[in-house]
């Protein structure tokens, strides 16, 4: 034992005590309480609650419209929407519209993602080229692409190409920026290793840069499918012969509110299906990449 320490301690304590004698320190409360634990409900109970809320809202809507609390002319009514949905599918236009929107979305998604990724990765190739292109990429990023939609429709016409073009315009920028961010985060030491072995630039690009960027590209697939769908719908809003966006615009302008709801519902379902596909694609790709 250290005698110096033993001798010193009481003196320190005394000093502290006399200094605080004037003001009595607030005493801490003595707390004894149970750790708050949330009771976790079982999954069936949660699902029951979810369904209950849905059914309740629909019922409320139906009744409110019956009693004219909600104006059925503007808000429509669940029962009417349901019958419109059945006629929509029975008449046969439904499939044409769904396929049209689906096709332009998927085409725009694939083209935009691929072109953007390649463009972004190409910036690795030369820093001069990357620096020259930088202001253009920033311009492209800051332009509200949807504002160009009328122009794009004028150029590409009323058909599918204009919808694909708008979807591409939306997706390509995100893809380019993400792929470029991926390229810039390639480990410089990793590059040095490749060069020290005597690798050519092409070898570094194909064996290091591209595999390195693939997880970055996978991470934008989800964002891009949503953007591509938005692009297609806006294209159809501007001018189109088919598609769910056109159906919404048409129904709205003729005050067929129940058809607007039907189209929105179908669109939501379509969007969910596409998210599921992309989610699955992402999982498969990640399995091949992450270890």
């Amino acid at each position, binding site marked *: 034992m250290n005698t110096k320490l033993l001798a010193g301690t009481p003196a320190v304590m005394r000093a502290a005590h006399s200094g605080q004698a004037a003001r009595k320190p607030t005493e801490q409360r003595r707390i004894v309480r149970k750790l708050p634990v949330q009771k976790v409900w079982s999954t069936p109970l949660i699902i029951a609650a979810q369904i209950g809320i849905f059914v309740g809202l629909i019922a409320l809507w139906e009744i409110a419209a019956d009693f004219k609390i909600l104006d059925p002319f503007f808000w429509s009514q669940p029962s009417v929407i349901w019958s419109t949905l059945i006629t929509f599918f029975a008449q046969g236009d439904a499939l044409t519209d769904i396929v049209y929107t689906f096709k332009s979305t998927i085409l725009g998604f694939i083209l935009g993602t691929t072109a953007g990724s390649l463009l972004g990765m190409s910036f690795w190739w030369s820093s001069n080229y990357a620096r020259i292109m930088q202001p253009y990429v920033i311009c492209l990023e800051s332009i509200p692409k949807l504002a160009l939609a009328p122009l794009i429709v004028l150029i590409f016409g009323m058909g599918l190409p204009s919808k694909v073009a708008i979807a591409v315009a939306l997706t390509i920028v995100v893809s380019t920026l993400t792929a470029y961010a991926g390229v810039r985060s390639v*480990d410089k*030491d990793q590059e*040095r*290793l490749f060069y*020290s072995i005597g690798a050519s630039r092409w070898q570094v690009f194909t064996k290091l840069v591209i595999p390195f960027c*693939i997880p970055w590209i996978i991470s934008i697939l989800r964002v891009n499918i949503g953007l591509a769908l938005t692009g297609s719908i806006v294209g159809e809003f501007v001018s189109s012969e088919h598609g769910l966006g056109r159906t919404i615009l048409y129904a709205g302008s003729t005050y067929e509110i129940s058809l607007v709801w039907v189209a929105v519902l179908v669109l939501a379902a379509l969007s969910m299906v596409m998210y599921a596909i992309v989610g699955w694609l992402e999982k498969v790709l990640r399995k091949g990449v992450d270890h």
Partner: protein
Amino acid sequence: MDAEPRLVLDDISMVFERGGQSFTALSPIDIRIPAGKFVSLIGPSGCGKSTIFNIVAGLQLPTTGDIRIDGESATGTIGRVAYMLQKDLLLPWRTVVDNVALGMEIRGVPMKEARERALPLLHRYGLGGFETSYPSALSGGMRQRAALLRTLLIDTEVVLLDEPFGALDAQTKAQMQEWLLQLFEDFGRTVIFVTHDVEEAVFLSDDIYVMASRPGRVIDIMPVDLPRPRDRSVVSSPRFVTMKKYCLDLLHSSAEQPAAEPAAA
């Protein structure tokens, strides 16, 4: 002894210009390394060890001087030496065998053949059973082994090792040093090894170049006359302890009085 050393650093220096001011990273040095020797560079950070490696690997051009490998100028030429950096730099998307085969693949060996050549070595050097694993499944020591095998499978006479065991724990480090000595005898390459660890340098090397910083320079060359093959018990021999102390004293005194006249050996 060969008439012409395998690797010659002839009057190599490196001066950076930064905002009108020049900064000497490396004042002129001469290093001659005979074939099949193991040479270590030790010194404080900023003594230019990494600069030397970059220049020898052809990744940087020296301000003055010439690198010669087997009498042939190799200044600014990549692919003449095998370079292992401090980080293992294994590619996470490649299996262990494909990582080890990377150098051969880049140098034009078909992938199938490169794998066939790598496999027996993985088995012999303690990576058997992990051929098709990904690097994330390996321990730090095993990753360094894989990185070292990748380096040695590159068909060059000179091998540069930049603090390969710097990040390992003491026990793994000791194992790796013994393993490296084994590889050194098996492969018969010429090795330059950078380390902060004096004991490691004495244990592994034939010659030790002691360096000082500001500016980076060589202050002494110490031959290590311990017989090979060496095993761990050598570290407690009086000769080993004397040499270790000599190096430590040199490093210590150069740290106290920087930028004195460079004492060439």
